[in-house]
């Protein structure tokens, strides 16, 4: 390493050392930076570096051990090889809960603990403090902006709505410990503002712009969101709802009795004929019953029961008296209800969950247990840096978050409590 160093030069900026030198230094320090000493399983020369799945001994030292008899035992063996590192946990918790490193005093509070039990107490107190700090509010706003992929860039333009309000409303629900279901059912003050100096949220009605007054249903009627996801036939708005709050791409649900159809298999939970297509409407603008390539109906039996509720919101997200989204065919006609569903077919969130308008859709979403699980799983992935549950395919086996989902239900869907629980969980503090 030494031989690669150059003679320092005043004119050089950062070329006084070579990348090779730094690379080696980073490499060696990376080992240490990610490790500790003593009981740290990642310590240099210590145990715990054995790759998962190679059946380390109970102490993580690679000692030969009897191979696990069952997959469950294997899981237990690997997980038991981790050890609590409250110093490391504090660092990552602080970065996630308030976007900054812990102070030296906080780090020393953990270090001062005589044993793991004392360190745990100190750590959990700090998690509580962090989740009560003003910085937590800002972190939550950022979390929701990233989750919604929506945020105001620059100043709000004339005639447009702020794209910050949805994330701010979601953050307010978390920070104030309101039921998560309010995100879909709140009938007022769903476009709050946040004062970072005072760390206060102030509820406000959403801007109606040049549109007409309409129903309010949490973020489902947030003009910033509706504007962000404006697209042909309002399908992008529905996809946003599905992927963000149900944590799953379309198809949203599948039938227990799939049927071979065309070049594929129809798996929808509603009848194939229950949406508009050439079979029941020969002049349909879009043939949702097409089976020549993919089975459109697999997704559209659900999509078409939600999208028509959003067709009167224009590109700025404001409600108008007439349809505002187009059908992507020549001449781009404005979408009508008949373009989605035959006469007599009603709206629905899911099979057996009929709805009539956006507020009842919000109620159905709020009551869906998969939506509650999705909220918990999203926070879990955030805490453990696992990426987006849909885009990054960071799915989680139900067994992992079942206890948290159960507590979430009994906690009146207080997501802040779930966040605290996850950051204090055994999985979070072990490395």
């Amino acid at each position: 390493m030494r031989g690669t160093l150059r003679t320092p030069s005043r004119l050089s900026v950062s070329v006084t050392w070579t990348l090779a030198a730094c690379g080696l230094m980073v490499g060696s320090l990376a080992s240490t930076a990610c490790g500790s000493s003593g009981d740290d399983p990642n310590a240099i020369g210590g145990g715990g570096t054995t790759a998962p799945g190679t059946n380390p001994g109970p102490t993580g030292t690679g000692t030969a051990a009897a191979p696990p008899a069952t997959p469950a035992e294997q899981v237990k063996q690997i997980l038991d090889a981790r050890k609590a590192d409250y110093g490391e946990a504090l660092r990552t918790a602080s970065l996630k809960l308030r976007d900054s490193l812990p102070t030296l005093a906080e780090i020393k509070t953990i270090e001062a603990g005589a044993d793991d039990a004392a360190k745990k107490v100190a750590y959990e107190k700090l998690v509580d403090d962090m989740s009560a700090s003003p910085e937590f509010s800002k972190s939550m706003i950022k979390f929701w902006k990233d989750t919604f992929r929506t945020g105001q860039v620059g100043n709000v333009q004339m005639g447009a709505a702020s794209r910050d309000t949805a994330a701010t409303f979601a953050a307010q629900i978390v920070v104030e410990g309101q039921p998560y279901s309010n995100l879909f059912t709140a009938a007022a003050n769903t476009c709050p503002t946040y004062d970072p100096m005072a760390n206060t949220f102030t509820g406000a009605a959403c801007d109606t712009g040049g549109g007409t007054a309409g129903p309010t249903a949490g973020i489902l009627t947030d003009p910033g969101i509706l504007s962000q996801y404006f697209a042909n036939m309002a399908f992008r708005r529905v996809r946003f709802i599905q992927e963000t709050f149900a944590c799953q791409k379309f198809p949203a649900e599948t039938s227990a009795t799939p049927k071979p159809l065309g070049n594929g298999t129809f798996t929808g939970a509603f009848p194939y004929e229950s949406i508009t297509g050439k079979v029941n409407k020969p002049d349909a603008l879009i043939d949702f019953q097409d089976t020549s390539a993919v089975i459109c109906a697999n997704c559209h039996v659900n999509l078409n029961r939600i999208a028509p509720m959003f067709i009167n919101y224009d590109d700025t997200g404001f409600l108008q008296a007439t349809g505002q989204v187009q059908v992507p065919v020549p001449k781009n006609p404005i979408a009508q209800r008949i373009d989605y569903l035959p006469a007599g077919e009603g709206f629905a969130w899911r099979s057996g969950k009929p709805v009539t308008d956006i507020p009842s859709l919000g109620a159905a979403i709020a009551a869906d247990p998969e939506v509650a699980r999705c909220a918990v799983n999203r926070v879990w992935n955030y805490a453990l840096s696992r990426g987006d549950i849909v885009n990054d395919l960071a799915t989680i086996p139900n067994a992992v978050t079942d206890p948290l989902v159960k507590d979430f239900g009994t906690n009146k869907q207080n997501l802040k409590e779930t966040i605290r629980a996850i950051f204090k969980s055994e999985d979070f503090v072990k490395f």
Partner: protein
Amino acid sequence: MKRIALTLIGVAAIALGACTNGTSDQLNGGGGTGGAGDPNGTAGNENTTYDHSNDPGGAAPGADFQPAEPAQVRLVGSPEVTSRLHSCGKMSVASIGSILTTRGLTGGGAKPMGALSGQQIYMANSAAPALGGANYNGRVPEAPFASTSAMAKMFDIFTMASYDAVGANWTAPACPGTTILGADGKFTKDGLTCLMGKPAHDEHLALANDAITKNSTDGAKIAIAALLSAAHTCQ
């Protein structure tokens, strides 16, 4: 010789396979059966923006579920195991800014003439995109994982921030009363702890001081840049 002949035959076969449309330089439409002109096609054309992925796997039922390969399970663990382990998330753009300000890396050190400080690099307009910042207008959230460009940009920032940390007047708002270099010119454990945001250990200290021993001019800066980069590789 036989191997060469087989190779040539293979290349020729691939070349012929790629030219099934004769001399046409048009791309295949990708529509159901016959490209853009196919009434049953699902690819958009100049008359319609109606456009669908024709990947049969794209909308197939259960397409999201892909059972883990047994070999992968042995290597990285089962889905339940990996779900319970920390992954390596990217430091958020805001967090990097916070590190610079709370750790006293705000450009106060003596740098080579004309050089930007770590904070100036961070504040430049080009920094946030390189660091994986969000682009909400494009419906893109902040990247959860670091790209090569993000790692390189972080290293640029931390390299130049090291000039601030070795300055005689260095103070960190989050670590009052702490010095990075002691009176003996060696690193202090508290100083390294402050920079890393977690307890420094003897190994950190030994490696960092070794850099000073090997290069009395720039060793401290090298050590700090490397330490910051390593410690903050993951969130």
